[in-house]
Every structure is written in structure tokens, then in C-alpha cells.
């Protein structure tokens, strides 16, 4: 299985995603420069965290114009699994591949800490190996992770079961206190209508080894291996 990790000039979690795929998971991984026009035969695409082009405008606003994004769109349209983490999620929103937008955290400060998220749906390539309702301990690190969408959009997301992760307590209760940034409905991650494109604010690639505090994030990467090996999501090479 081959992971493509897209590198925007201001990506800074690119090497972390690469390391998780290549060294922790033992899969093939390649860093793909944002000016490239080929995903080089990848089976999975990861848009990593960071500050794609400095994000002095809106987060991810410029990244969607990078040449590689056309290829990512094409890959996703063909059913290929795409994971956007943190800034990668913001890029997916700006590129229109997922609905909604990010506001500044309600505390108006950057937040870096471990949080708990509840897995809401397991029929996506990145949650296929999870148990329904499973609670994962994964860190966040963002200043703009306050998910917002128009009420009808949120209704549609809920109705279509497109909310994939919600901020929760350690025991899985979705409460205001468990919400670190003010996201609507405690939304931490969503998928598109065809369920192959997933974006989330927490960083699963930072939670792949107990040595760094948690290995709960590994299950997202294991999920995509499982999903692809079952042929559930056609590769779009």
C-alpha cells in the first residue's frame, strides 16, 4: 500500500504523516511536492497539518490553487481515499471537497493538548477498523479549528451520517466541556457524501506510538489498509 503525503511549502506535519505510514505502519510512503502534477501511483492521499502558504489569509485558502490539488480532486472523484489532517482538513474545506469552514477557536488562542474524540461512523476508509463509539485519545494543535457551517449544511451532514468524529469525554459523552474549540455539534471530523474523503482537526499521526503519549491514532491508518485490502474503496490511479 502506498501513501502520498502532499507537501505544501508551509506544511509541517508532512514528515510526521510520512513517518507514521512508512516507519510505524511499515507501508510505502512518498512526499509529493505541491507543484507536482502526479500522485505517483499512491493508494491513499494525506494532506498534512501545517500552515500551507503561511495562512495569513484564511487557512488553506491558497493551497487549493496548488497544481497537485487538481490531481487530488481527480483521485477523490474516482473514489480514492483522502485524509486531511488539521491544515489538510482546512485545505479540503477551501477546495470545496468537504463542506463548511473554520473559525478561530472560541478561546482565541492556539490549543495544543490531548483530547478525546468519539468515532461516530465506521463506514469510511479511515474508520473501518474502529468500533462504533470507540473513544480515541489524540492531540489537537490549532488556532482555527472551530468548525462552522450553515444550519442546513449541518443538518444534511448529520442526516447523511457524515460526522465521523466528535469531541467527547473519556467515557464518550459529547459535552460542551469536552469541546476544545467551539465546533458546532462538537464536530472534530467529517466525510464527503461518497465517504472516501475525510477531514479532521485532531492529529492521528501524532498518536501512533505510546512513547509519544498515545497510539490511539494508528487505527485510522490501519483502517485504510483494511478498507483497501477488502477492495471497499477503488483505487483511482
Amino acid at each position, binding site marked *: 500500500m502506498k501513501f502520498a503525503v502532499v507537501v505544501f511549502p*508551509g506544511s509541517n506535519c508532512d514528515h510526521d504523516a510520512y513517518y507514521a505510514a512508512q516507519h510505524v505502519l511499515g507501508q510505502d510512503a512518498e512526499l509529493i511536492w505541491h507543484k507536482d502534477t502526479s500522485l505517483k501511483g499512491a493508494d491513499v492521499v494525506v494532506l498534512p497539518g501545517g500552515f500551507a502558504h*503561511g495562512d495569513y489569509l484564511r487557512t488553506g485558502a491558497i493551497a487549493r490553487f496548488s497544481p497537485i490539488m487538481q490531481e487530488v480532486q481527480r483521485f477523490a472523484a474516482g473514489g480514492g481515499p483522502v485524509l486531511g489532517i488539521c491544515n489538510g482538513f482546512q485545505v479540503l474545506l477551501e477546495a470545496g471537497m468537504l463542506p463548511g469552514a473554520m473559525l478561530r477557536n472560541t478561546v482565541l*488562542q*492556539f490549543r495544543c493538548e490531548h483530547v478525546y474524540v468519539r468515532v461516530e461512523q465506521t463506514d469510511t476508509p479511515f474508520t473501518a477498523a474502529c468500533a462504533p463509539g470507540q473513544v480515541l485519545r489524540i492531540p489537537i494543535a490549532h488556532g482555527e479549528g472551530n468548525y462552522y457551517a450553515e444550519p442546513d449544511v449541518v443538518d444534511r451532514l448529520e442526516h447523511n451520517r457524515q460526522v465521523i468524529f466528535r469531541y467527547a469525554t473519556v467515557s464518550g459523552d459529547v459535552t460542551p466541556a469536552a469541546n476544545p474549540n467551539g465546533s458546532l455539534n462538537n464536530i472534530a471530523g467529517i466525510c464527503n457524501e461518497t465517504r472516501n474523503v475525510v477531514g479532521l482537526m485532531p492529529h492521528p499521526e*501524532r498518536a501512533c*506510538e505510546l*512513547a*509519544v503519549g498515545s497510539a490511539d491514532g494508528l487505527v485510522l491508518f490501519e483502517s485504510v489498509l483494511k478498507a483497501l485490502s477488502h477492495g471497499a474503496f477503488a483505487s483511482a490511479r
Partner: protein
Amino acid sequence: MTMDDQVLERHGLTRDEYNRIVEMLGREPTFTELGIFSVMWSEHCSYKSSRVHLKTLPTTGRRVLQGPGENAGAVDIGDGYAAVFKIESHNHPSFIEPYQGAATGVGGIIRDIFTMGARPIALLNSLRFGSLEDPLVRRTVSGVVAGIAGYGNSIGIPTVGGEIGFDDSYTGNPLVNVFCLGISRADDIIKGTASGAGNPVYYVGAKTGRDGIHGATMASAEFDEKLEEKRPAVQVGDPFMEKLLLEACLEVMQTDALVGIQDMGAAGLTCSTCEMGSRGGAGVEIDVANVPQRETGMTPYEIMLSESQERMLLVVKKGREHDVERIFEKWDLHAVHIGQVTTDGKMRVKDRGEVVAEIPNPCLTDEAPVYRRPMQEPAYLREARRLSLDSLGQPLVARDALRALLAAPNVASKRWVYRQYDHMVRTNTLVVPGMGAGVVRVKETHRALALSTDCNGRFVYLDPYRGAQLAVAEASRNVACAGGLPIGATNCLNFGNPQKPEIMWQFAKAVEGMGAACRALDIPITGGNVSLYNETDGSAVLPTPVLGVVGLIENADRVVRRAFREAGEVIVLLGESRAELGGSEYLHVVHGLIRGVPPALDLEREAALQRLLVEGAASGLIRSAHDCAEGGLAITIAESCFDTGLGASIDVPGLEAGHFGDVVTLFGESASRVVVSVRAQQAAELLALARKAGVPAAAIGTVGGGAVRMSIDGRSVIDAPLVELEHLWSTSIESFFEKQRAIA
């Protein structure tokens, strides 16, 4: 032209210094030259007051790959890799404009590290502020923390530790010291050298603007009521530009097209040009007309003195220009050819071909003024060192003192601060901030590095020599607690106005003490920074010589953390408690005093203790370790319980101090003490090891239960629910800021 006194004063030069310039050049300097001399001869760049003292510090050792003199120091960490690190101050700009001052401080230290060919992997910062009760201080704290976060987070280098202290002396003069560590191949360290006549000199990065002109001169003067006027001297940071520079420069360094590289930090283009030439024994000639400019109509003077951020100067091998330009283009950066290396050893600046400055490099570097300034023991010392406990009235009872100290900002959790820093990016952080030394693994090896910055300014104020020794001991003890063998250090010496003999005396004594302690503990200092003139309206900060220590952990799987691990563990106190309360946090918090004599320090004992900690960590015998610092034994025990939900019960022998006996026993700050925990069946083994090592050791209690219980000679003095104490400790600092929000 003959300079009038006002012009000289604006340039921070004395008449004597000016005369010396005329003598060196054999003529009057041009205005551009005067500007160049003024920044290069400023305290910040020339170290003219401190140099004679700094020379006495130990800078060599078996592992030292690069000592002072380059952009950063480097030590060998094995397997062909080097740790490249340095600490630097950005105190003055951070007071004038907290966000940008702190942000550009981070930017500057990161450039120093990747300039050496190392990839930066960790940041720490050592901060000092006035009291959080003061709304202006809270504004400064908020700005500095947001600035550090804004820069470090976006560039993607984790802030893994450091320390923050509060004292009224820092109200008008906060300290912002930033430390960065990077990893490079030991044989690939890059130097800031210009050599090879005819080799082209390139400028790359942000355009040059009028920001930061005379920043180095500003950092070499006290603050007074004209503060607002100095605002234009603070630079503005662009972390995205720095990220591009970082990646592009590291890529260029992978080729062999580079001769040397230096960042433009303090004194900008001036400093990088003459220092690179000086190191290589060559000259450098540039034409400022080729320098990319952000504003129109800039004079050569302004271009040479600008401290615009995110700029680098490169010397490239002739014929390899295209290779270098191509890499920068990839990152959408444009490397611009602005000059070349010459053979005449001079810095020559042209403006459209016309020479506007021509100065032999040594005049600006090695031959800059050096002063052996007069020194005098400060008058305050005699009185301040006298401490009579009897005159203090009744002490607080132990349980109230514990609560007061847990909530004191110097002791309380700094979570409000570090949760704003990305401390996990790069997935190397094994010990997160707020837990003693920060620990990062080095993925290329099986090793990890423990990093700590420390200094208790109160101790230095009361005894500069011993206080600086205590700073060395504490920083190195902290990395040893994590299992790290201290292998190198960098210092940041923050003091007042060196033209005052009392301040110079503090400085000299502190450097002497720091050197003696580093020699005794075998820790070479590979570089650092001096920040003088930390005064506002004539009143100086507590003398604060911060030491940043790097500790090597051979096995990244054997990192020791500070929290107790499981119920039933035996708690062992390593080291000896004495009846010492001088300079303590207790006196500061409860009685508002900075008084007495700082704790005694036996460096041989300290060394033995640190060896024992490293050995005990490597073998897996020691399960947790936390040193005794501000607030003494009681605070150490409480903090070791936090984050685990595990309580503890201890019983210790009382120390003799009259009705202050309990206070001294629990809150005294005797040095060279560490609380460790071991499995019950291994307690005897640890005690035997300690005995062999010559380290006093005693089993003082056990881990478990939901309360923190302390007794003295069998008499219970503290019995408090853990959750209550932890709440007090963890919410104290944020409550200051929540109050502020409520008012707003």
C-alpha cells in the same frame, strides 16, 4: 566631517570610541561607516564589557564539535550525529512590542541553528515577568506567549520546555530568552565563513525595510520615559518566509555548492558581511543597490543597519550559482547576487558602484573595544543577606503554606502558557512541557536529549557566585532526573547596566561561579548571549544568568518522568536537607522577602547525585525523579503526585529552626536533592547504590491513596485531598487571565 556629541550619543558611541575609529581608519568615517561602527561596537554585538569575563568559561571537552564564535555550538551525540544549540535574549524588543519582540526572538535563534546545517527540532524559552497582579504585566505575558506560539507553531518546531519566573524587578524589563536545538550530521556542520576570492555573495529571503534600524544599539541601552520612540526599532516577523528559508537552506547545504552562510540577525547586513569575512580571513564587497528593498529611497546607511527579519547571506562556489539559484526558486525564493569575496580583508560597501564604506574587518570584530569595567560589591548585599527568622513573627502552618506556594505563579502549573505552544509536532516529544526537563528523541538514533533552562535570580541577587553555581546545578540536575548525562550548555546572561560597578561585580562573580560549576560538573559552554542594560528608570532586574543544558539519554526507552508511577512505590529522598530558608519561595510568597544566604552547594556531591540519577535511569531502577527547587520538598512531593491521581505519604525528620522548624523542613530549598520512586522490592538496592556513590539517601514514604500526607518525626502536618491541591496548582495562573477577561 566632525561629529558633534549629539550624533555620537544617538549612535551610542563615546568620544573616545570615535577618536579610536578615526585613528583606525586614518580619516573621519563617512556617515554610513559611523552607523556600521555603532552597531558593531554596541554592547550587543561586541561584548565589550563582558568579553574579558566570558573568556574564563570552560568551552572545550571531548564531545565539543563547535565552541563559541560561530552561530551556535555543537556537541557529539554519537552515531555520527551532533546536537547544535544556542540560547539568545530578545528582552528589549519584547518589552516594547511583546508579540513581535518575542516572535522575532524565536525566528532569530532558529536561523542560528539551521545556519549551521542542523534541522531545528526543539525550542525552549526562559521567561521572566513582573507580578501577574499588574494588568500591564498580563498584557506583556499574553503578547510574549502569543508571539512565541505564533512563530514556533507555524514553522513547525515544538516548544518542549523552559521556565517562567515572576518578580517585581522584571516589571519594566521582562526577560525573553529563547533556546533552540537542532540535529545535524557531525561531519556536516556548516560555518559562517567567506573565503575564496571571486566567489559570489548572495542575499536571500525577505526584502530589506526600515524596520529594526539600530536594534542592536537599542538592546545596549536602558529604558526610560522615551520608550515609545523606540518602537520603530522592533522588527516584524514572517514565520512562513522563515520556513521557506529553513527548507531551502537545508536543501542547498545538501549540495557542495556552498562556502559559508550566515543569517542577518542583530546589525543585519553589516554584521553578517564583516563577520563572515573576518572568520575566513577575507574581504567582502557588496553593492547595496542590488539588495532587494521593501521601501523606496533607502540610504546605504539604512540598508546596512536594517534588522529586517528572515534574511540570509551566502557565499557560493564560483560556477555553482545556478545550482543554488534553482533550489531557492523551487521554494519561490530569489537568491540575489549582491557582491563577492575579495582578498583585501576589508568590508567594502558600494552604492551603484560608488564606495560608501570601506573598513578593515578586524576593526569591527577582533579589534573592537574591550573594557575591563570597574567593579564594586553592591551595598545592598550586607543587609539583604541578613535573615533573622525571629523577626518574621509567626510562620504559616504547613498546610496553609503548601496551598499558598502551590498557587504562587513561580510554582503553579504553567499550562496556560504551554498549551498555546505546539509541543508535539515532529512526533519526537517524549516529555512534554511543565514536567521538568523537556525530552525529545532523535529519530536517526536510539537516543534522546533532555533539555532544561534554569536560573533562580533571587539566589544570584543574594550571592552572584553561588547563585550562578546553583543555576548550573539545577539545570543539569533537571536533565539528569530524566536520565540525561549533561554534555553541553549554553548561557544567556541577563544583567543591568555594566557601567555601574555594582552590576559589573554581579556579572563578574556570576560568570566566575558559572565557570567553576561547569568545570566541576564537566559541562562545557559552547556559546550563548549576554544581555546587559536590563534596567528601566535606573532600576535593574534580578541578575539572571540562565543556563540551558543538553543531556544525552543513551536509550530513548529509558526516559524517567517526574510523576510517580504506581501505588506501593517507595519514595526516596536523595541528598541532604539542611536548615536553609535564604532566598526561598516561601520567604518571597509569605513574607514578601528576598533575603538571607542562598543554599550551600557542594559540587562534588552534586556530581555524584547526577551520576547516580543517570545510572539509575539507564538500569530502569529509578521509576520517577523530580528535583527539589522552589518551594522545597513539599512542593516536589505534591508535583510528583499531579497528573497521576496517585497520592503519597511521607514522614521526614524535622530540622532545627525554632518555631520555623516545620517550614524549613518542608519548604527549605537545600540544593542537590531529588525525590525518586522505586518499586518496593528495589528500595534497598537504590539505597545501597546511593551509599556507594556517596549520596545521602533515605526512604521517606510510599506512593498511594488519594491524599497528600506529610508528617515530621511522626507528627502529621499536612493531610489534603490530592484533587484539591492539584486544582489549586493547575488553575492559579489561568485565573489571573480569566479575571481579566471577565473585566473586559
